[in-house]
């Protein structure tokens, strides 16, 4: 506890850096996975390929990916762009599957009914598909968010600061309190972001609340 109090400033700086690294990939995952996921759900032929590709991509270990990305794309090795790109790739790979599941879970009868009462293609997507797919999308996004927050720590291994710096620095200097702080802070950030997403979900999809009450 004394370690935490003595190093509050450093922790605050690293926390901010951590958030800057993990928020863009979470947003990118949602936005990029939406069109791919919809396509995957609607076209089974493309779908099978996309699902295999994304699960293979997700199987690529994080550290080699962090090293390969700058070398292949010509970023400097120790840059935030590397970490953000790597985590976006993971996030999209993970999110595509849940997005496809979300849109496949929409009852075709409901879609037909919507078409029958005259919904246009655009209206069908925004007013029928998206809201009905919402809860599954949210569940997927929460998984992406939590694992992104914890994966950002690995950036410290290639020298990109974040809460992971507390882990590597604590290990190298033999300060147990610093490592424990790093773990605890990462878990807290993950839990808070998860809670925020849940709250946003309840605001945007108030009907899911009623299900809980029942």
């Amino acid at each position, binding site marked *: 506890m004394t370690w935490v109090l003595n190093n509050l400033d450093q922790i605050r700086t690293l926390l901010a850096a951590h958030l800057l690294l993990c928020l863009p990939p979470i947003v990118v995952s949602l936005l990029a996975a939406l069109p791919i996921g919809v396509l995957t759900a609607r076209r089974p032929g493309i779908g099978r390929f996309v699902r295999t590709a994304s699960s293979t991509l997700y*199987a690529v270990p994080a*550290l080699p990916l962090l*090293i390969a990305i700058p070398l*292949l794309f010509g970023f400097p090795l120790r840059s935030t762009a590397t970490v953000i790109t790597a985590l976006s790739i993971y996030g999209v790979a993970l999110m595509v599957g849940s997005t496809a599941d979300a849109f496949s879970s929409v009852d075709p009868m409901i879609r037909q009914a919507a078409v029958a009462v005259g919904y246009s293609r655009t209206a069908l997507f925004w007013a029928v598909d998206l809201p009905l797919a919402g809860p599954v999308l949210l569940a997927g996004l929460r998984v992406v968010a*939590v694992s992104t927050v914890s994966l950002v720590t690995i950036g410290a291994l290639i020298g990109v600061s974040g809460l992971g710096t507390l*882990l590597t620095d604590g290990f190298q200097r033999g300060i*147990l309190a610093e490592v424990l702080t790093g773990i605890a802070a990462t*878990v807290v950030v993950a*839990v808070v972001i998860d809670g925020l997403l849940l709250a946003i979900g309840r605001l945007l999809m108030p009907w899911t609340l009623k299900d809980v009450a029942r």
Partner: protein
Amino acid sequence: MKILGQALQWLSDPQVWGGVEGLWARIGEHLGVSALTVLLAAVIAWPLGVWIGHTGRGAGIVGALTGAARALPTLGLLTLFGLLLGIGLGAPVVALVILAIPSLLAGAHAGVSAVDRTVIDAARSIGMSTHQLVWEVEIPLAAPVIVGGVRTAMLQVISTTTLAAYTADVGLGRYLFSGLKTKNYAMMMGASLVVVVLTILADLGFSVVQRWLTRRTHQLSRCPAGEY
């Protein structure tokens, strides 16, 4: 893209592959440590998962554990145990076992709890004991899902063993960390390629086993209705 050529050049050097600290030895070490940790984790997770699936008690724990494991930073566990247990093989093994448990537990639990209620009632009504029910009905029927859990855990552990080289002299991660220090990009890229190929091969291998088991259990469960 020049780096890919350099990496392949590094990989084509026979000296890189041979020897006690060569690539083959490192690959063996990497897979050995991964298999050992998954085995240890299975010894803990499977009995618990089967019990929870069989009795239906404590199912909430499974969900909570898998969620918590996702939030827990891997590097944190590795450095924590590295400090507590020193820089031997012990620290990464303990950390990796902890990481592997949730997937194995979830697999065993999901598989057993998904066994059709009527199948269980049938097994009971022909006089099977609880022991027989678990070993001869529930576990065989759950096998594909249990192996699915092993697949997830194994992939996770093979990936994470790369990080284990940060605190112990083990596995393919060695090349990545020493490459980072000496700025040997060809070696880093080459070793990264090896790790990626290894995980993809492992994933493919498990998916084949899983598909084979699924077909087999489908035959098993269809058998009585077809023959009698």
